[in-house]
């Protein structure tokens, strides 16, 4: 178990470094950072000066290794724009994004789980058709639009929820609904398909022949098998949400990682962008690891000594 964890951790760091190297290349190839730093009006000498002080005149690989070595020791550099240290900057934004991510995935699962099970056991009936139609509609709605609709309903017409900004828990209700509404359809589809498949297996027939109650058959025998791929997907989605939702944080003016990323990209604040990419990559790999661990706990065939 420990060996597995260690191995996965090494994998996570490797993936993070590879991804950040790719970002590094993309950023240096698509624009001149010195111009970003000095502004369009900067003179040739000023630009040269900036390149020397920030080490931008060195070969890309050297620049990258320098950054990577510092990053591994916890130093992610300073923002070009605010001159703050990048790490505390991102960490200050993380709680907002993390809260939003947890609530959103919670909403997604809370919608997908009962609906997916119901749709599967009433396959082909009205509840199944309804659930699938709702899923199709929700998948077709861009989250900024569903966000705006929510604002119109709860914020403008009913005036029960704050429209924007970050004050208290109420600020999270609408963004979580909008994001949860967006992630739930894929979870629902996967769970429904898994449940339909599982309910047709021989071991469910065995369970029925044992005279078990329908509740037990569905929740114990079927769900435990059908939920395995759903967990993997939910973990990936959760990782995505933890990286920050640029659109929803913009719509609701939430000061999260997504908003920071968006602002930094606009300002060509390279160290911040680079650090966020690294963070997202590491979160992603960690979430996959978490999914593997949960699946291992639920599925004895994956669990190995």
């Amino acid at each position, binding site marked *: 178990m420990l060996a597995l964890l260690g191995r996965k951790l090494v994998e996570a760091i490797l993936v993070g470094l590879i991804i950040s190297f790719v970002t590094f290349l993309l950023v240096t190839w698509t624009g001149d950072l010195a111009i970003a730093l000095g502004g369009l009006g900067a003179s040739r000498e000023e630009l040269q000066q900036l390149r020397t002080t920030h080490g931008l005149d060195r070969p890309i690989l050297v620049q990258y290794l320098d950054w990577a070595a510092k990053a591994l020791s916890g130093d992610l550099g300073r923002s070009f724009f605010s001159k703050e240290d990048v790490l505390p900057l991102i960490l200050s934004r993380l709680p907002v994004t993390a809260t939003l991510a947890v609530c959103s995935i919670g909403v997604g699962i809370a919608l997908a789980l009962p609906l997916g099970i119901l749709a599967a056991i009433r396959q082909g009936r009205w509840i199944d058709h309804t659930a699938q139609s709702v899923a199709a509609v929700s998948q077709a709605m861009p989250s900024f639009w569903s966000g705006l609709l929510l604002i119109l309903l709860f914020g403008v017409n009913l005036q029960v929820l704050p429209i924007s900004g970050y004050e208290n828990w109420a600020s999270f209700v609408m963004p979580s609904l909008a994001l949860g509404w967006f992630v739930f359809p894929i979870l629902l589809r996967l769970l429904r398909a898994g449940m339909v498949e599982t309910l047709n297996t021989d*071991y469910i027939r*065995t*369970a029925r022949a*044992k005279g078990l109650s329908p509740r037990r058959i569905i929740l114990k025998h079927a769900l435990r098998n059908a939920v395995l791929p759903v967990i993997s997907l939910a973990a990936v989605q959760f990782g995505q949400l933890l990286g920050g939702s640029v659109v929803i944080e913009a719509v609701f003016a939430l000061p999260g990682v997504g908003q920071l990323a968006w602002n930094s990209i606009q300002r060509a604040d390279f160290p911040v962008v680079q650090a966020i990419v690294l963070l997202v990559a590491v979160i992603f790999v960690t979430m996959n690891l978490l999914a593997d661990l949960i699946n291992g706990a639920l*599925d004895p065939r994956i669990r190995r000594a």
Partner: protein
Amino acid sequence: MPVLDVADLRVDLRTTAGVLRAVRGISFSIERGETFALVGESGSGKSMTALALLDLMPRNGRRQAERIVLDSRDLIRLDEDELRTVRGGTAAMIFQEPMTALNPVLSIGDQMTEGLLEHRPGTALGEARRRAVDLLTRCGVAEPERRLPQYPHELSGGLRQRVMIASALMTGPKLLIADEPTTALDVTVQAQILDLLRELQRAFDLAILFITHDLSLVRRFAHRIGVMYAGEIVESGVAEAVITAPSHPYTRRLIACAPDLAAKRGHRLGFLTGLPPRLLGVLDGCQFRFRCPVVQAACAGAIPQQRTATGVEYRCVQDPQGTAGQGVPERAAASSPHSVGESLLQARDVSVSYRLRGGLFDRSATIQAVRGASLTLARGEVLGLVGESGSGKSTLARVILGLEVPDEGSVTLAGTSMRAVDRRARARAVQPVFQDPYSSLNPRHTVGAIVRAPLDILGLHQPKDRARVVEQMLDRCGLPRHLFASYPAQLSGGQRQRVAIARALVSGPSLVVCDEPTSALDVSIQSQILNLLQDLQRDLGLTYLFISHNLAVVRHLADRVAVMYRGEIVESGDADQVFERPEHAYTQALLASAGRREASG
């Protein structure tokens, strides 16, 4: 009073094509300590009957019956909640696939005890587990305590079936419904499981409803047999009487179709032409009349009434005497021993091992699939390769087909090494026929295109002649012409296997490797295919490497036999000699199991 008394049971399935009459008014009863076997081919309604007793049919199924009395309760009058107390309570079921019939994510202990805990609320878990251990012991499971925390994938097929049986007995049922419980198991394991069932039947005075497609299996295992065809029991009676003196033409044919382990090779099997009817809509008369060799005008009238003959009851408008002569298959048409020529194929000391792939950092394990196997095949000969699952017979076949490069050893075909021959030349010389005609034919190509492909690839015949060559081969393989433009999905299993055989033979190979070619087919279809293979071999002077786990089939077809066990060929020789005087202990055990399976009492 019988434990189970079923009268006029009917099951309808709603399908897109209409209402399918899966079970059409069957009646039977089973006494305490008695085994009643329902025998039939796929689609005969035997499994649907088993499921209908406890109302476990698929969602599109509806059952009706005059009565289904189990232990003096009429199941037809119970509601769903009451039925649940019967399922796994008074009546327990075991199924065909021990590999898939147990839930993979729940422990053996959990799955064994949950039924008892559900049926007898208040039972202490410790008590339930003690009973599980006790029953596992009775079912011949070693170290029963150690099994409870284990999961299904950690047990072998035979062990899983023992667990299933033990699990079924937890609540002390009076009726055990066993749906093909040994079909998925190797022959030695089959014999053990049947012995176990018999022993438990005596110990617990169980009534057993045994569902199977295998007539030879029930001969002595069952006390009474009901033969099902097209949703009806066409004949029933004491097992020995039904098998030795069958009265219904279908039973007669079915028995004639099955290869017999005791018979010498060269016989021609009996066969049934055509396919079972589709049971849609209103059905009149005897449904066997479309395939019956002794059909009369009266057969199309009313459904024949039950008649009684020596020890059996059957539904046919004719007297058993009247059908006697014609019912016996043409076993006389034995083929003359064909000439065996010079050596065609030689495999020497072939070894193949597989590496089990682990993850990036995992150490990989190696499995030795074939170890130093040698065999020779003379031109015009049929070599039967026999072995149980995992014995390495299919791997050896893949080496001979050139689909697998052996780690060690060599294969020479007509004097040249397989490694020296290029892909095309090899494909001209050796062709395969695989087990599963459902997955071995490309579903998006027509029959004609499938059979033509080898000619195009290998550049055989003039392009303008190819269509004619394909037609001739399909005719030869007995596929009706109107099906040449069909897709595999539109064909029956037997028809698909005919296409697979035509595809293999169209390029004129000298050696055909048949890997379990009839294992997925019903007995009556199997006999058609075996007869076809036999005819083609004689007419075209073919050489077969015939791989099968079914000893009777190999006995029927093979001149020589090689027995594989754990990757090695442990015995080989003349078929008569190996079957009658086996030398290796494994061969003896294999034959004993097969024989016991068929004839034990």
